[in-house]
């Protein structure tokens, strides 16, 4: 089951990456401005490529953007933008949580020297972003997909194997028997008759 799983996620990844390439054509500037002496504003955008997954409607209202593991939590505006206010200069971590998608955490360096200039790097892929536009690395499917009905799946099941074995015994064994030399067969049968059916009790010496 695992290999099948992996291949689907790989396909999703490829799809995502294709959409990433398209997205890069439309760039957005990082707007970052100093608010006061030591606190800055980080503004970014979350983009979810349409039609990557079936069933998961990209609802912005349920997406959370989290700074530094829960220090600040913010939500997306209808256009996908989010803002963290009053962020001190330093290196921060931004995570995006949306059901049905996996986002890489983003390392964000807010420079004190350049008046709050923001530098962003995806920590998972180590790719640096020219602007803070966050896209999912891959779509997540929480359920196992049922495999469609096929004859093979029935044959592979324990029941199918049992039936298959029975078929083999029923149709192939007589064929095998035919190939045996009749005299040899006879002698073997006589031998069996003389010895009787070997039973468990006969094997145990104590029972005698």
């Amino acid at each position: 089951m695992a290999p099948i799983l992996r291949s689907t996620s790989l396909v999703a990844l490829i799809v995502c990456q294709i959409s990433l390439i398209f997205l890069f054509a439309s760039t957005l500037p990082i707007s970052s401005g100093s608010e006061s002496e030591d606190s800055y504003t980080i503004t970014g955008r979350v983009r979810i490529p349409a039609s990557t997954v079936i069933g998961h409607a990209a609802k912005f209202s349920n997406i959370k953007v989290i700074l530094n593991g829960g220090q600040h939590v913010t939500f997306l505006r209808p256009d996908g933008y989010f803002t963290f206010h009053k962020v001190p200069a330093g290196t921060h971590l931004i995570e995006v949580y949306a059901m049905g998608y996996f986002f890489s955490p983003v390392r964000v360096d807010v420079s004190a020297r350049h008046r709050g200039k923001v530098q962003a790097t995806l920590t998972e892929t180590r790719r640096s972003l020219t602007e803070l536009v966050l896209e999912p690395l891959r779509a997540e499917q929480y359920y196992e997909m049922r495999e469609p009905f096929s004859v093979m799946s029935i044959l592979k099941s324990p029941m199918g194997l049992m039936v298959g074995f029975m078929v083999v015994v029923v149709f192939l064994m007589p064929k095998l028997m035919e190939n045996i030399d009749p005299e040899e067969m006879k002698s073997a049968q006589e031998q069996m008759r003389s010895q009787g059916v070997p039973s468990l009790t006969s094997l145990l010496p104590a029972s005698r």
Partner: protein
Amino acid sequence: MAIRVFLTLLLFLSSAILSFSLYEDQAGLTDWHQRYIGKVKHAVFHTQKTGRKRVIVSTEENVVASLDLRHGEIFWRHVLGTKDAIDGVGIALGKYVITLSSEGSALRAWNLPDGQMVWETSLHTAQHSKSLLSVPINLKVDKDYPIIVFGGGYLHAVSAIDGEVLWKKDFTAEGFEVQRVLQPPGSSIIYVLGFINSSEAVVYQIDSKIGEVVAQKSMVFPGGFSGEISSVSSDKVVVLDSTRSILVTIGFIDGGISFQKTPISDLVEDSGKAEILSALLSNMLAVKVNKRTLFVKVGGEGKLEVVDSLSDETAMSDSLPVADDQEAFASVHHEGSKIHLMVKLVNELDNVLLKETIQMDQHRGRVHKVFMNNYIRTDRSNGFRALIVMEDHSLLLLQQGAIVWSREEGLASVTDVTTAELPLGKDGVSVAKVEHTLFEWLKGHVLKLKGSLLLASPEDVVAIQELRVKSSGKNKLTRDHNGFRKLILALTRPGKLFALHTGDGRIVWSMLLKSPSNSQACERPNGISLYQWQVPHHHAMDENPSVLVVGKCGSDSSAPGVLSFVDVYTGKEISSSDIGHSVVQVMPLPFTDSTEQRLHLIADTVGHVHLYPKTSEALSIFQREFQNVYWYTVEADDGIIRGHVMKGSCSGETADEYCFTTRELWTVVFPSESEKIISTLTRKPNEVVHTQAKVNADQDLLYKYVSRNLLFVATVSPKGAGEIGSVTPEESSLVVYLIDTITGRILHRLSHQGCQGPVHAVFSENWVVYHYFNLRAHKYEVTVVEIYDQSRAENKNVWKLILGKHNLTAPITSYSRPEVFTKSQSYFFAQSVKTIAVTSTAKGITSKQLLIGTIGDQILALDKRFVDPRRTLNPSQAEKEEGIIPLTDTLPIIPQAYVTHSHKVEGLRGIVTAPSKLESTTHVFAYGVDLFYTRLAPSKTYDSLTDDFSYALLLITIVALVAAIYITWVLSEKKELSEKWR
């Protein structure tokens, strides 16, 4: 033989990479999810003629939600960050929900129908202060509708349309705290009333267009104000002075300001400390004096006059305009097991518009808050509905003399969880007639088969779901053979104990803690923790199991504790006692008395320990083990861990024979300049370890160091104790210790340079897994430490075992210096973590899974084999067979391994696991704002057939085989006959 088969089976099962996975149609079969919001702080009704009727609430769990007024369901909700407490909520422009949070610095607007955030504004704040949100209804400034916000010393006017700050007024210099924003109708001037140092009342008249102060009046009130305030009209407020004995009416008509003092003793004879109940009543004031509620009318010149009084405790709503320029308010008071809801006109208190009496469950406690709303009935008269918040945090809607709906919001603040067995089913009763006829049985299984082969139509799918729920019989209130049906006991912050059924999550019983003495000081204790008190299994079988609930009166650590013993089957309190000392630590001891009551030690703040139950039998059991009882305390602020041993009986007047003094045995002091304790953890005391040894790939044995007395401690540099981003990698380091709690010996120390907390850890068997932040890589990391016993490593030789020259039977003592060695490995992990737990099974045979509560409020099941320190880059063939996974730098996040599948446990705080009777299966219960329960089989259900098992296919196969045998028999007969003829 059976064991060998079993073990091979186990090996076979564990060799495949397993993950918890679920088909979509299986969701909701074994799991359930309940959504809550928490105790309601503010409520705003939105009941226009068109559209759905809803109420917008904000809660103490930092939730803003829109509820359906008809059924109480959640339309939408948002859980804000933990530090983002909501200060106010309002509706602007009839389409936006406005919330003010973070002490008045974050203002957000949410779309009313769907909860989408529309805009967000960060407001400048300079100091801590009370914050205030005011959404004027008909204030309009140049096509814009300003929202007035005060917080942190600044007054802001913010546009309701886009969140733009229109103007800002700095009040930081004077230390002015705004109490009320009043707006006379038809004028653009707003009145801002506030106090300076709570002794000077100031009224500013501000032009709402530009934010300029038009006029300012102030007056010093020598006595000072208490801070309680009630608005009575657009130009008058009543405040209480700091002695709580004088009511001061502040009028500010036409730029003037005037005080009028009225001592409470003038209004009522038996004066005492007064409390203002109402926030907003027109020309009226409700004051609570000596448990009596007084309705005070405020006259035109600020003259106060008592018009009515109620003897019982009363909760009040704000007043609401009803027809004919009149205002009405609702009040709720108790009388026995009933509550009375009254709606009166403010001007004519004799005119009771509505009087309803409703039977109320005693276990809901008193009414805390009332929110009133009116509607026009078909006969054009006024109808009223009231939303009430009870003492147990539950939310109820009252309308037409009945409870329309109720929500058990106490479950949003679960503090402790334990599980309990259900009563045994009586013979002949538990065997339910589920399948009626063979035909129906077969039909059901054919349907299931169709479902599993993806041949089912949508109607069939529905039928299958129904069938599954019905046939599983999971909702019965009796014990089942597999131990799947259990009670989850959840203690909540308001001190209410709930018993939830694992089958569907319904509340079997609930009980509100009561103070045993009914004293004035402690009316309702807070729930702290929950312990298994009596679990009868060998002796005392006819007794019902019971749990111990430890509660506390008040919030400080020295507050006296309350013990309550609750019967698990019935939910009735057996007894309760006011123990007269504080509760710092509760220690269940591994001893039980003849009635299977577990002995508990409770440590108080003065260093004494008290034994419970207070019986002579318990005392004699304890005296026998007196020398062997050790305990430890962690003083995280000072960086000290102390070990204690029993010393003797307490001396003193109040002491009884169940009180003992202790002696300090050892201390571990962490240098305060370089290390600060951020996390401590021990093993679960009831954990079962199946095997002491671990067989390596090369037939080598490793002995686990399994000790109940190990303490995991994580310390971090003081600079790194803050949030991520506040420290550079050079400044912070993380050190973890494994400490023996009997001797205080440090068994292992591991330091991580350039790392910081928060540390989330889990301790099971002989391993610890912890999650922390690596500042150099700027990623989260997970490290596993496994601890093995070196002293027993010599026992590998078979001959030694045969000749008895091993030390396996030698008693293990903590006094001897243990020869241990550890193995550890670290991996990256791509998510923040809120909590980690581990699965637990009945015998401990089944492989373990880590349950990681991620910051996205999902729970990820990660096989323990992913955090095995023996993982290498290229495992040998033998190692692969053993199930060792090739080493990767990152732990995988497989979406199908989320046990919560498409749900979120909003505000996740804890995960509790409990074994079922079936070895392969474990119960998992997660709590936060939401509750989630599921059953997990970490190595799949190897010891029972799954629900999916198709009996129909088995039957069909057997039938086919029988038919084949018959046909071949007939064929062979024929062939034989023809041979004989030949």
